[in-house]
């Protein structure tokens, strides 16, 4: 057991094989430490499963199970039903990447929600199949370079738009669904803690930057995820029973270029070689940047990110305090045996 840190359990402990600066490892460590070791974690196939369970070694200091790619939500449904039959209220958590949520795991997730299982489903959204070498997923945003959506003379990266999975989830009229990201820890913490007080199916989508697939410096994972929120490309929202109940207000909207420029997966937009539409060089890249800006503007308008009356905004939520603002309550808690 890892008992190095008196202030944190480290449910996801050190020695895992995630890349340097991995946003998903950061997000999973935050979420699992907020929930604690006294829970059963069901993992879909994906980066998180691969880098934490390697060659007879596990990084998990809590009960953890992996079956196959598609069925994490179904496995968790079974675990939850069995616990319920025994009168055991141990929380059940599903962890999946965007592949295991948006694409391959979507129908099991939908079934889990429809049957009303008391499960928290956490999606670590890094916007592509990173583990297998950065292939596009339905979560990959428009105009992104992946190995299966390469930019070139006739293409500016992924042609299709990012799937709005939150609206699909919301259409189930489930008790709680929210988005979060690693840059705003205290927002993430509030959402995890709120989710853990609610019974029934709950869903959390956490934007998790991937230095490898997004092609940014390993030290910029937090900065990039903060910019995703500040530009409006990734709104932080909460939905209860299908209705938007709270958003993170943007103190100031940043232009999408600030976000795009840090990432190699958008580099081709600033150095466009496409001749598909016009012969004036950068026209296509510039057009895609305008398109991404319009998508951000549409999301800001849809969730009223600039007007909403909320206690928090992107500036206040970032601010730190001397001696911290608190962290994890599950200090020193032992894993369920």
């Amino acid at each position: 057991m890892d008992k190095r840190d008196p202030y944190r359990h480290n449910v996801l402990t050190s020695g895992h094989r995630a890349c340097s600066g991995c946003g998903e490892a950061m997000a999973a460590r935050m979420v699992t430490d907020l929930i604690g070791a006294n829970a059963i974690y069901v993992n879909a196939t994906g980066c998180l499963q691969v880098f934490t369970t390697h060659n007879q070694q596990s990084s998990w200091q809590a009960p953890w199970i992996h079956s196959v790619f598609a069925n994490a939500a179904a496995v968790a449904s079974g675990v939850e039903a069995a616990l319920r039959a025994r009168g055991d209220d141990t929380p059940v958590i599903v962890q999946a990447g965007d592949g295991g949520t948006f694409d391959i795991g979507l129908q099991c997730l939908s079934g889990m929600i429809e049957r009303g299982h008391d499960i928290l489903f956490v999606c670590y959204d890094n916007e592509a199949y990173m583990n297998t070498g950065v292939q596009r997923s339905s979560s990959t945003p428009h105009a992104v370079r992946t190995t299966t959506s390469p930019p070139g003379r006739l293409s500016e990266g992924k042609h299709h738009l990012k799937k709005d999975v939150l609206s699909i989830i919301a259409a189930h009229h489930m008790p709680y669904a929210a988005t979060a990201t690693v840059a705003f820890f205290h927002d993430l913490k509030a959402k995890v803690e709120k989710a853990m007080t609610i019974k029934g199916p709950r869903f959390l989508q956490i934007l998790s930057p991937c230095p490898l697939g997004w092609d940014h410096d390993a030290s910029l994972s937090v900065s990039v995820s903060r910019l995703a929120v500040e530009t409006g490309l990734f709104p932080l929202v909460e939905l209860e029973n299908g209705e938007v109940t709270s958003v993170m207000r943007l103190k100031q909207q940043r232009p999408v270029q600030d976000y795009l420029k840090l990432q190699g997966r958008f580099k081709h937009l600033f150095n466009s070689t496409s001749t598909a539409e016009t012969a004036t060089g950068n026209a296509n890249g510039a057009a895609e940047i305008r398109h991404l800006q319009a998508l951000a503007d549409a999301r800001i308008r849809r969730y009223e990110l600039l007007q909403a009356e909320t206690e928090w905004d992107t500036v206040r939520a970032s601010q730190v305090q001397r001696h911290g603002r608190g962290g994890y309550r599950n200090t020193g808690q032992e894993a369920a045996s």
Partner: protein
Amino acid sequence: MNGLVIEPGSTLAYHTGDWRTQRPVYRDKWPPCGQTCPASEDIQAWLAYASDQKWEDAWRKLTERNPLPAVMGRICYHPCELGCNRKQMDSAVNIHGVERYLGDMALQKGWRHKPITDTQKTQQVAIIGAGPAGLSCAYQLARRGYPVTIFDNQDVAGGTLYSGIPEYRLPKSILAQEINAILELGIQLRLNSNVGTEISMDALRNDYDAIFVAIGAQQARVMTGLDNSSHSVMAGVDFLRAINTGKSIQLPNKVAIIGGGNTAIDAARCARRLGAEVTVICPQEPHGTQPGHPGAEIPASLEEVLQAEAEGVRLVYRAGIKRLVRSGEHLSGLEIARVDRLHNLQGDFKPVLFEGTEEFLPAGFAIFAIGQEVNWKGLEAVIEKPANNITVGGDAAGKPRFAATAVGSGFQGAMITIASLTGTPPVYEQHEKAEITVKQLHLPYYPAVIRNESAILERWKDNVELVTGFNEEVTLNEAQRCLSCGVCFQCDNCWHFCPDAAVIKNDTGYEIDYDYCKGCGICAQECPSGHINMEIVTT
């Protein structure tokens, strides 16, 4: 786990630290407030204690370098606040307000200075001058176990702090209490003892193992080529000394002050309090009109000038005096003219006046505050025959002549004296820490808090202290505005953001578990105060 075929191990067995090409290191930096403090106070450190309401710890940290916080919190021109990085975000931390609160609290609670060592030294040290430099030096030596005797030719200790600073800026009772707290360390004080005339320097050298000379710059500079030796003319320092020692002075209706320094403004405000109409003839330009040319603007501090103007003192800028106009013995006024340039052809400070711009300024009394010089009478040997065990400090050692510079000079004098007594090189605690600028800070992480200002009383005619102090709540709020540049304030960012659980939080801060740190650099990137360095791994 008996049912399992394979007993699972933990990934803790696999040390990901060897993937690393650079590693984070926690390193304290030296913030600009400390860099610019003439007394080299570790301002960030005592503000940190104050932000935790550890008032006594804050006072003890502050008094490591400056034993006069209640005095300096009132009169220092706080160059620390000019350097403060918070200026780039909203406005500088009100450092002097917090300093004054700590000094006043120490006096109120009766906190006593503590010696650094228990071992009593036998080598005797004499200090000439009980001003800020002498007191500071005596304090540092006494805390280190040396028996110290201070000689002063006045009947009250404090030097220029006593004779040069009016009651409305520094109440005499505050000064006396802080001096007493210093003397309580066992320092002998011999007042009315004029070294050089009554006590010879040779006698002092026989009786003491080392001497620190801090006689200040007490002698007024005299303007040449003027009939200023007779009636109705006085030097600024002498005028202020008379006021501060309670002598009664009768002034005519109109008074002119010549000079633009703090002594000139102090003299003007004192004359105003005696009921006179006061005009200050200042050779320089007003504040803020010559950016980038500090010598071209009035040297008196902006706050003092603004307060003087609010009290009705009139300032005439870029003007110099040509002659005193007398009818018989009686002074009827001054002939003033516009200043062409401040320095003569030899490069000395001697305002050159434009021909044909003369005007008459009626005045029955003229006060010259054009600078002070060191009076070496009886102590010429100090200059002529330098010795290892004789050190000169404070205003007597040169410029700039600010109280805080004198306090810093006293500390250095003590270190040099100890070095000469022990035969070791002097220890200044030179800061080896890297300096930090605003570029290394992550300003969006800090909450916006508006600077707190002291209130200024409107009742200036009563000759009571004008600027009011902070209460505890305001002081705490102000101390917490400190950005803690380059020093950890335990915000938890590195701990929250480490993807590898390689930052371990403990009761005093954080440490990095290099067995697992992959060197991604997120902790350094997201550290608000620039405390974390990424260093290249060479092996």
